[in-house]
């Protein structure tokens, strides 16, 4: 069923070279994701590292399979795999990132702009910024003093959040 494109049937032909490059690219993406998961400090930056093998590594490896077996069924399945992975991976990453923000599992020191802070505050996170403050001020505010100083008005925050959900 597969087309004979005249690649080298034996030895190290063009198809083997394409296979080697794309497999090594995908393996490098998997390695980068593992190192990023171990090394990065909080949930949002680990989410950044996690997207590398999910999209780019998978596109490389599926293109590799489609190149080594160029038939209609293989290319259709390859396009379907990339399409559905590109549809589902951002949705799950979005849900994980939103849950990470709401439960306060992020370091607000690493954020340059926190535009979400004036809309919605984390439920019981360690870093509560003033809701009316400027976004650039909210980014570099010291956290330890603020969280102890704002313990007084933290009491009405959970009821407010329960109504919002």
């Amino acid at each position, binding site marked *: 069923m597969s087309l004979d494109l005249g690649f080298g049937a034996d030895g190290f032909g063009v198809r083997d070279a394409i296979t080697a490059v794309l497999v090594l690219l995908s393996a490098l993406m998997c390695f980068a994701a593992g190192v990023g998961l171990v090394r990065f400090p909080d949930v949002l930056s680990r989410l950044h590292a996690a997207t590398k093998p999910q999209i780019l590594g998978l596109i490389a490896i599926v293109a590799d399979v489609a190149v080594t077996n160029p038939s209609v069924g293989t290319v259709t399945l390859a396009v379907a795999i990339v399409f559905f992975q590109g549809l589902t991976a951002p949705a799950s990453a979005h849900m994980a990132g939103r849950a990470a923000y709401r*439960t306060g599992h992020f370091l607000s020191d690493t954020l340059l702009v926190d535009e979400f802070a004036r809309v919605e505050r984390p439920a019981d996170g360690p870093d509560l910024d003033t809701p009316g403050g400027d976004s650039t001020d909210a980014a570099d505010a010291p956290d330890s003093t603020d969280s102890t100083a704002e313990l007084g008005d933290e009491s009405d925050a959970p009821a407010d959040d329960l109504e919002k959900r």
Partner: protein
Amino acid sequence: MIIVIAIAGLLMAVGAIGAIWRIIKGPSALDRIIASDVLVATVMCALGAEMAVNRHTDTLPVMLGLALFGIVGSVSVARFLSSRDDT
């Protein structure tokens, strides 16, 4: 070609071990579900690399199933974690 397979297998194994280490060590449940997504993506890449090296397409429907249903676990955990935090 055997050198390429060895290097790719080593890199994928190190990535999978990093994801498993984060699943074991992770301070919150969100770290664990992100690491399990990375582990699923690494398994998909390994299946595809095996197909590309051996030149067959037998496990391509497995990759389609993983791409379709890999969302279910992480979305459900993240959805119910945002309303109640147990970690």
